[in-house]
């Protein structure tokens, strides 16, 4: 398939869609609870100087962090760089993790979101000539059937709408709606009360719906639903 195919509109088409997102049917909160026990041990080993614990943490949370980073960043390279920086920060200062304040995943997500904020602050100094995401496109990743192409176009438009959202709104949707994390975990990651998470999510959904309505991706019913978010 050539680069001029309709799937080129899919900005992050360079990603490798090879493995399912959630192989088992456990909820995100349940998975986190099960993982946190082992994570604390891994963190303790890492603090003691055992770097193999870093590998375990990466295998356990790397994909989830990459998903979050991909939802926040415009390019795959930037998303992977930020995940790498997160693990570098963890390796540098493993003692900063306090298990009494939350899970290791929440801590890593918190570090990552700070890296994302810094990435966008630094990006403001530069003028982007082209996103270059389309250059990552590879024929192997493109879906074959027409309905898959149409769906990916809609998803690409949704992604564009997501990337146009302000950073705080984007991250709340990525954590609450895409990662489906519990509000308590999200509040822990963002360092704010649960009430703030709820109100910010409500507003973020309303903003996203309005943007999607301008792209004619949602019906008028959803738009009136969104306008209630500002009332």
């Amino acid at each position, binding site marked *: 398939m050539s680069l001029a195919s309709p799937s080129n509109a899919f900005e992050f088409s360079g990603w490798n869609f090879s493995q399912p*997102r959630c192989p088992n049917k456990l909820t995100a909160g349940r998975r986190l609870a099960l993982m946190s026990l082992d994570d604390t041990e891994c963190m303790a080993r890492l603090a003691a100087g055992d770097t193999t614990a870093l590998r375990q943490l990466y295998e356990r949370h790397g994909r989830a962090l990459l998903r979050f980073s991909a939802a926040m960043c415009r390019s795959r390279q930037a998303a992977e760089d930020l995940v*790498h920086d997160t693990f570098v920060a963890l*390796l540098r200062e493993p003692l900063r993790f306090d298990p009494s304040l939350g899970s290791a995943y929440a801590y890593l997500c918190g570090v990552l979101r700070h890296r994302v904020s810094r990435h966008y602050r630094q990006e403001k100094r530069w003028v982007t000539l082209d996103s270059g995401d389309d250059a990552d496109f590879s024929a192997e990743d493109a879906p074959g059937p027409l309905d898959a192409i149409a769906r990916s176009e809609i998803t690409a438009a949704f992604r564009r709408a997501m990337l146009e959202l302000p950073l705080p709104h984007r991250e709340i949707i990525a954590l609450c709606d895409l990662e489906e994390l519990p509000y308590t975990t999200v509040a822990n990651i963002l360092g704010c009360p649960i009430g703030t998470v709820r*109100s910010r999510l409500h507003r973020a959904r309303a903003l996203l719906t309005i943007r999607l309505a301008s792209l004619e991706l949602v019906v008028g019913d*959803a738009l009136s639903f969104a306008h209630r978010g500002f009332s």
Partner: protein
Amino acid sequence: MIGPAHPNLRELMNNYARDLGQISPSASLDARIGHLVATGSKSFKRPPRAWRRLLAWGAAAGFAAAAISAGIVIGMRLERARDLAVAQRAAPPQIGLAFADLAMWPSDSVALTIPAEYSPQGTLVAVNPGEKSTAQRYLIDVVVSNDGTIRIERIVPADGQVEHQQANPDGVSLHVQ
């Protein structure tokens, strides 16, 4: 309490989340993490935390001191320039006496006696003593001090005061005090 998202939005989110879920880390990222695991924290050379913090505080204090000093110097210069401008504006106009000859208090003065007579307008005007006139003449004693003031001491009729007229051709006689 926030409810679930609108079904239409929920469907779009699910599709997007499904696509995001199919992302797997690239071989490059795996290799970089592997390198991190292999090298450990030895690959990072950084100064100790206390030393770094001290350095940051020192730099901040130095910068603050420099900013305050610069502010003081600039303020002093502005103040001095303003005082000079005010002094120049308030300086008296140049008169016959030199600026240094004027004092705050009169320390020196001269007394002059000027012959005068009434003009048709009713004011006293200086007269030429050589000119003959039938009008009543007066002698005005004036004291000029070095503080820039002129004071009229007294005005007396000129009867019998011939010695003044003889003293000076214009009738003005000088008395050194």
